[in-house]
């Protein structure tokens, strides 16, 4: 079996084989999710702490459901309710959770590298559920899973990621996952949010949206996180919409089989025209569904699970 890791901290350090191992395992779990009884005993008796130091709804719910379907015991721990606000350090909080014999810590944190820090100080398995502007590995795995499912392959595809790249952990994880699997990735958005430095990660940067999407097989739209942008990054949402928003006129100039993705939550009418979000070219809801299977696969493999054959047998 190719998967030997104790943690899932980022995509950058994974090999293509490791990524494929997750995708293949997720495929088996997706089949489980389509059965009448969706639960497997893989993590029975194991305790998972969802340590969400930065608020999140969909990633937390997706992890919770994945853990429930693996029969794990779950503790949800959010920053608002926690002692972190009272000045306890992350290390102390995590050590306390470990003292309760938690086996897994799923961490979402606004500081890049926080999961790596936890993995150094804890014996528990650490799963990165998004760290600052660094990585969001399970999102990239579910994106890759969804693309492979619909297109049959990753290698040779043109994938364009459009929007706020600078602050996006999804963009970074997607770039690593897709380029490792042989896709050609193009990044596009306002120059303030898409510095050329990203090209050193093995992708291409362009500021011409029409050119960016013309030959794309997949167009992955990222949320314009207006609450995070200082006013210096771009003049207005309206200007963003007119320059980079995916509207019908722009979509008409793409390949007819180009598919649209978005990690959510969607700002309708900003990065994407509302009708396009609901069209049959949109994979947005499939991404959500696949997120469960992918996160089950990650927890299963990190726990020492053997691979898809074991799930099929069970």
């Amino acid at each position, binding site marked *: 079996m190719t998967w030997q890791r104790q943690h899932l901290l980022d995509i*950058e350090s994974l090999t293509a084989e490791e990524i494929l191992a997750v995708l293949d395992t997720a495929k088996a779990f997706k089949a489980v999710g389509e059965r009448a009884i969706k639960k497997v005993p893989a993590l029975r008796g194991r305790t998972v702490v969802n340590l969400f130091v930065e608020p999140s709804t969909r990633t937390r719910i997706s992890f919770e459901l994945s853990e429930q379907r693996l029969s794990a015991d779950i503790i949800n721990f959010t920053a608002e309710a926690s002692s972190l606000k009272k000045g306890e350090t*992350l*290390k102390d909080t995590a050590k306390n959770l470990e003292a309760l014999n938690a086996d897994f810590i799923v961490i979402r944190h606004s500081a*890049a*590298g*926080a999961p790596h*820090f936890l993995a150094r100080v804890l014996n528990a398995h650490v799963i990165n559920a998004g*760290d600052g502007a660094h990585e969001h590995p399970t999102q990239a795995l579910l994106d890759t899973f969804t693309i492979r499912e619909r297109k049959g392959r990753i290698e040779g595809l043109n994938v364009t990621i459009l929007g706020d790249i600078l602050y996006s952990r999804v963009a970074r994880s997607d770039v690593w996952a897709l380029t490792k699997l042989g896709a050609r990735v193009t990044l596009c958005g306002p120059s303030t949010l898409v510095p050329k430095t990203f090209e*050193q990660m093995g992708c291409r940067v362009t500021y011409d949206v029409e050119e960016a999407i013309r030959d794309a097989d997949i167009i992955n739209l990222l949320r314009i996180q207006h609450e995070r942008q200082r006013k210096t990054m771009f003049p207005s949402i309206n200007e963003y919409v007119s320059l980079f928003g995916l509207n019908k006129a722009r979509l008409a100039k793409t390949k007819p089989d180009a598919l649209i993705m978005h990690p959510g939550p969607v700002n309708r009418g900003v990065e994407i025209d509302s009708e396009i979000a609901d069209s049959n070219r949109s994979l947005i809801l499939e991404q959500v569904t696949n997120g469960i299977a992918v996160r089950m696969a990650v927890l299963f493999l990190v726990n020492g699970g053997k691979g898809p054959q074991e799930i099929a047998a069970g």
Partner: protein
Amino acid sequence: MNALLLTGGRVVDPANRLDARADLLILDGKIAAVGEAAAGRAPAEAERLDVSGKVVCPGLIDLHVHLREPGQTPKETLATGTAAAARGGFTSVVCMPNTTPTIDNAGTVALIHERAAQHSAVNVFVAGAITKGIAGEELASIGSLKRAGVVAITDDGHCVQNNELMRRALEYAKMFDLPVMDHCQDYSLVTTGVMHEGYWSTALGLQGWPAAGEEMIVARNILLAELTGAHVHCQHLSAAGSVALIREARKRGVRVSGEACPHHFTLTDAAVAGSEEFWKRDGKQLYPGQELLPAWPAYDTNLKMNPPLRSARDREAILEGLVDGTIEILCSDHAPHCDFEKEVEFDYAPFGITGLETELALSLMQLHHAKRLSLSDLVAKYTVAPARLLRLAKGTLSVGADADVTVFDPNREWVFTREATASKSFNSPFYGWPLKGKAVATIVGGRIAWVEQMEALAV
């Protein structure tokens, strides 16, 4: 009579253009003789140290350290900080004013002088603040600070953003011939940056601290030095552009100078991504052929300092600036922090690393052993150059001068360990590094402040 004779060493005294094998005699805290006369003039009861094979030089001066007293003594105290200095070969240090309270008034200066007289192993000189509370809003009582004995002013750790205020500080301090030192950082450009802005900040998802954030203030300081005729000293230079600006300004005769720290000319931003990335790329030439190299993880907070570690190109430019004399002064920016303060998320860790106990070795490695600079030119950057900037009667082995003397073995190979650390804090990225060059005796005012293996040296 207190007498000490150092025999057989290589005496390197850049202030007197001396680099020769010679004996050195200390009588009653002063240099009494150097050379052939020394042994003959030594009284019979003089203590003798055989320092053959070692370098004997004026006591090293580090003009940029944080001793954390008063108010931050869990990190460091005058006693532990100066013990670290002595062990690193330093006979004089200049402590920065960002303490609690800040050193913006004569009373705090007096307190430090008094406590240093009781507790310190080496000479402690005090830098006062430029502005009240280091808040960058109003001038501190610079005249009172001068009278209380500060050797310079700086808001180090912070940077005076208001250009008019900085101009007035320069004009005012010039009246007292008091050097002004500046931590160069443009806040509006740097915002919340935690590491050098470049590929690694992008890949690691950390907020970038662009080199231009330093260069902009270096340029500002050059213009203000020209406007006021005052001298500005730019602290801990990290960026290639800063070196170029200062080089050009000095050619035009502008009174501007700079200093560099070993971490900025040894490490790069790639180190923040972990040791593997560093040794694979920017660290390659540091230990050619060596297989077993020190290891550290990504996001190690002991690689977080302000200004940050920069690119390989910046590191090269700092080295070039040291070689061609643009940067005259070496220092550590010794910035101790408690383990629990550093054992947090990278974003939340305080900036700074300790340096007093490793800076001589790292400077020798990158400048002397790497054949970039002669031993004498290197020693000058730790002795006569800082003494000249701060108008200290130090940094020389002239007969009659204070007997501050450092003895070091430039070729000694050693490893820095937590167990052998004199500082109260351990926030150094250089633990476990194979180092070359080490102080073996530190003599302050004729008194041995620290000596390695006394029995081995005593004749």
